[in-house]
């Protein structure tokens, strides 16, 4: 079923529970983000993209895979907007459209490396599977 970008934006807001209107555009989310430099669309932009209904750009953005799900932005946002939840919602939308998981447990061992922190594994499953 094809949905308009506007409908998709509504779905993203619904599954994330985020009210994008609460954002006062201070940029603290981006300022707090450890993956900022890796992202093409930055956390604070996510909020305004969803607000403006520019969903296709988000679906194609590499930011959704670069987000570490560390939730620093959620923790520090003065307006309680929770940008990471928006990113997660967009990611879920992509994964669901693909109809499968981005990562399966079988693929994990070969990707492992001694220095990887445990948290990364946990957030990888959070990020890459349904």
């Amino acid at each position, binding site marked *: 079923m094809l949905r308009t970008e506007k409908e998709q934006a509504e779905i993203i807001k619904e599954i994330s529970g985020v009210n994008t209107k609460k954002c006062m*555009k*201070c940029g603290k989310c*981006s*300022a707090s983000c450890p993956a900022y430099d890796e992202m093409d669309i930055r956390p604070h932009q996510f909020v305004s993209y969803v607000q403006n209904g520019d969903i296709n750009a988000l679906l194609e953005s590499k930011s959704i895979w670069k987000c570490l799900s560390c939730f*620093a932005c959620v923790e520090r946002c003065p307006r309680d907007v929770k940008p990471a939840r928006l990113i997660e919602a967009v990611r879920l939308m992509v994964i669901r459209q693909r109809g499968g998981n981005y990562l399966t447990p079988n693929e994990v061992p070969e990707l492992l490396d001694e220095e990887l922190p445990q948290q990364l594994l946990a957030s990888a499953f959070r990020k890459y599977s349904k």
Partner: protein
Amino acid sequence: MQRIGVFVCHCGSNIAATVDVARVVEAAAKEPGVVHAEDYQYMCSEAGQLKIREAIKEKNLTGIVVCSCSPRMHENTFRQAAERAGINPYMVEIANIREHCSWIHKDMEEATEKAVILARAAIAKVTLNAPLQAGTSKVVKRALVIGGGIAGIQTALDIADAGYEVDIVEKTPSIGGRMSQLDKTFPTLDCSACILTPKMVEASAHEKITIYTYSEVEKVSGFVGDFTVDIRKKARSVDMSKCTGCGVCQEKCPSKKAPSEFNRGLNTRSAIYTPFAQAIPNVPVIDRENCIKFKTGKCGVCSKVCQAGAIDYDQQDEIVTQNYGAIVVATGFDTIKLDEYDEYSYSTSPDVITSLELERIMNAAGPTKGHLERMSDHKAPKSMVFIQCVGSRCADRRGKSYCSKICCMYTAKHAMLIRDKYPDVEVTVFYIDVRTPGKNFDEFYRRAVEEYGVNYIKGQVGKVSEKGDKLLVQGVDLIDNKRILMETDMVVLATAIEPNKDVRKIATMLTASIDTNNFLTESHAKLRPVESPTAGIFLSGVCQGPKDIPETVAQAGAAAVKVVGLLAKDHLVTNPCVAKSNELFCNGCSSCEKVCPYGAISYEEKEVNDHGIRETRRVAVVNSALCQGCGACTVACPSGAMDLQGFSNRQILAEVDAICK
């Protein structure tokens, strides 16, 4: 039988857009007792009031109902109109069809139906109204100002200059408040002390002003015109009448480890101290918690060195009881605690400071004698970062939802002063919005940028961390959409301000209402901004909401005028809506007396004639000058002997009936 007139106001389109005014008139006209009903564009206007007056005279009305805005808005207007037309002002009832109806409902049918019901309730009530006569109460020609900062000082001076006695109660050992801690003031950059100290001196020298420092308000009773206040004068341990203020005791005091409150804990002070050099009164106090004599019983150095023999270790707290006609709250503010803002490293790094701490560092009388230096290694910084909105405009539990209002301007001031005095220091300001509404304010901010080269970056800082002896600031530039990672020597946080923590206690004593942020509520946000809803209580300064110095001084003056206006009266007209006891129903059980907050009920042995039975009974008597009309007694009374004029049992029941019909 009452002859009632109903007047329905359109309030322009405020009411008429959602309430079918003609239908309200039509429905009201059918109510029993109603002999006149009409509508008009603006009932509160002179023309509208004239309609009311004419109708009263022509139709011999005995009571009127005005369907309009809230009675809190125009009840008095219409009461006066009724009085001018020759009927008792308390024969007026208001049906609030604006705030409680037209403004909150969209559906015309629904809103009209509700307006009709509200009108009916008011008609039912006014039918049972009785003419009431207001009494009078005295006005004590003396005012109390709680708080000795610039707000309190200015209010006190203005009241005193008008010829009335004023007492200032200040919690700390000296008057002066926050302003005395500031170095320079925006946007003119005058030295704060230079403009404040003359006012402090003037207040202390004024024959009409009495200053109680190191004192707190302990108990308040009474009401507008005659409050009785207990003031606790804490034991100073120094005899104020003997001390010459020479300062030797402070020099010789061996206990010098107490953090200086005045310098925001950046350095220490002696146990016997005056907070700052220009303190008024220039009489030290002994901080008993840090004094060796009080802790161990040994020492007594100050007593030995005091030539005037002013040290008195046995001094006790003293309670002063005084009566006042009016009370001004000027309790000011403090900065919020930053314990939970880990991301800015305030608790861990001494080089991350609040703006108020920077004021002390910049001040020649401060802990660094005015040299800009880092608190960790006393080195001069080469670069400084200012972070705006720390804890302000926050929806989370850590911060405050409001804008602290003063930070944009003082940050521009700090940045400008630093660039002026130390041109080699790089200054960066991270901001969300720069808010500069005020005379010469935006020009001031632009000068900081254009003339002094302060670097303003739009974007809130995400994190400040320690990196060697530097601080690493992580942020973004939202305009360039670019990551910023910069090393700096000092970080200054524009910390949110909040009302002084004692204000809740004081508000409770005064029964003045307070909002969710602990700011005192004004009686009307626009039209009565310096009055508390509690009669006789006035607001001055930041206790009412964030303000800069010019606004505070302006409000202080406004509060003073309101106080003077009150004190100039010889007596006040009291609210006639007071309790009244029907002695034939009274059992003398004392239930009412127990719940009366004003001690307005007493008992008399009285000869009564109860339908031919003459006997002496113990009956309740209400002192109408003391009664404030809350009605607590009416419900405590099991027999219904106690009733409240203006809100009688029958009146309220009539409203209930009209609404539920």
